[in-house]
């Protein structure tokens, strides 16, 4: 059964998930792609060589965390919408999460939104910080949230 806890356990033990120490150092990509599928656009998307798939193409994507500068370019290049960005050093009490987003209407900067976890359940309120046009119709939305939720917050509730 897939729920917040089982998904978190599964992605946390995959090579795309940053270590605790790396999270505390600042913005970092979180790759939640724990299954051997034939896919690799993330590898080419990172300008800093921080994602490795290699051969065969079914290898799990690995985050080379020292090389990741947290630029966020990989987010909208992943066809599985499986890459997020977490910045634990946004402010004293707040972290930010950046998520791939393919729904309309888009939220506005400054808007308050419902932040959801991996099974779509309400986690907390968040404030939209950035709305960036990503690759080919995929947008990247950055939301600030209370720090404690950095590991569960992975979506926002679409606006009607």
């Amino acid at each position, binding site marked *: *059964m*897939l729920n917040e806890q089982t*998904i978190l356990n*599964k992605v946390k033990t995959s090579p795309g998930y940053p270590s605790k120490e790396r999270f505390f150092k600042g913005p970092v990509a979180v790759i*939640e*792609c*724990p*299954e*051997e*599928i*034939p*896919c*690799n*656009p993330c590898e*080419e*998307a990172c300008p800093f060589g921080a994602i490795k798939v290699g*051969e*065969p*193409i*079914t290898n799990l994507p690995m985050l080379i965390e020292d090389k990741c500068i947290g630029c966020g370019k990989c987010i909208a*290049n*992943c*066809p*599985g*919408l*499986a890459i997020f960005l977490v910045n634990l050093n946004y402010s004293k009490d707040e972290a930010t999460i950046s998520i791939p987003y*393919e*729904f309309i209407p888009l939220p506005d900067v400054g808007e308050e939104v419902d932040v*959801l*976890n*991996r*099974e*779509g*359940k309400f986690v907390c309120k968040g404030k939209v910080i950035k709305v960036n046009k990503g*690759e*080919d*119709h*995929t947008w990247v939305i950055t939301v600030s949230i209370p720090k404690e939720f950095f590991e569960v917050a*992975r*979506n926002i509730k*679409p606006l009607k």
Partner: protein
Amino acid sequence: MKEAEITVIGAGPAGLSAAIEAAKYGANVEIIDENALPGGQLFKQIHKFFGSKEHYAGTRGYDIGRKLLSEAENLKVVIKLNTVAFGVFDKNKIGLFDQKDILISKPKKIIIATGASENPLAFPGWTLPGVMGAGAVQTMINIHRVLPGKKVLMVGAGNVGLIVSYQLLQAGADVVAIVEAMPKIGGYFVHAAKVLRMGVPILTSHTIIEAKGEKEVESATIAALDQNWNLIKGSEKELDVDLICIAVGLKPEADLCRMLNCEFTYVPFLGGRIPLHNEDMETTIPGVYVAGDVSGVEEASVAIEEGRIAGISAAESLGYISEEESEKERMKCKNRLKAFRIGPFGSPRQEGKNKVFEEYKRRTKNVK
């Protein structure tokens, strides 16, 4: 116009790739498709595809279709749309109907790339309006921009069920639940994660038992299954939905191969009855090739490589390339195919394909 030496039936990723390769080496190629738009499945797929750079990964399905199409057009491939191939006779006469006239095409080689068709699912109420196949739903929302229902039950959690659920959410529908009879999700984790974080529950070991409604679907009854696939009494639940979308698998659309008397084998993991073929994609009828979902239901990336192989093989048999060169070109495709068929999803498909190749060898040996 010169008569086509190769007729490709089906203008999906497999057929277009086959035509491109064969035309590249100088063959005269025509493609037939019953649809008004070329591209097969690709044109209704608004999501970004998986795969590697050689397979346009990260590109949306319809853009892949456009790229393949313009490549084929540049190579002067003749594309006949709104034309159905209704039969093949005497090994090389193809009967075509272009919605006006019946035409006969007599190519030297035939490449069958007709894709797959959806499996139906019968249950009380399944004939009510509002019970639809996932392919039709996808065509309505992504091509015709019509939402066939507001509250949806999806039946099947394979990749098609998961992706179409996500696209229904994008189109503004509420997906009430996805039921899956198997004890686990059949599609990729990332596709499941995408719908789950939108709040759509995926109920494994659950199935639909009835659709109810006066004139159209007004509700769906679902129930849980035990390990032996028996309904668990008392687990029935009625869901308020107006659309029931069926995504319970695909099977090869191989009627033309049957008419040609191609030999078949049974490989459940590839969609059921598969026309036998060798690694160069030739069937048990010399000069007739298959590629893509018709030769075993897999993915667009696989369809593209198999199409390329079939195109090269057909061009070689017409003398447009040497055996040596074609073997070299085919090897590149075969290596990429091998890489795709590893991992928990890929290796059962490789095993299935190996069975098809071995069976082909065994049966063609007996003939000779």
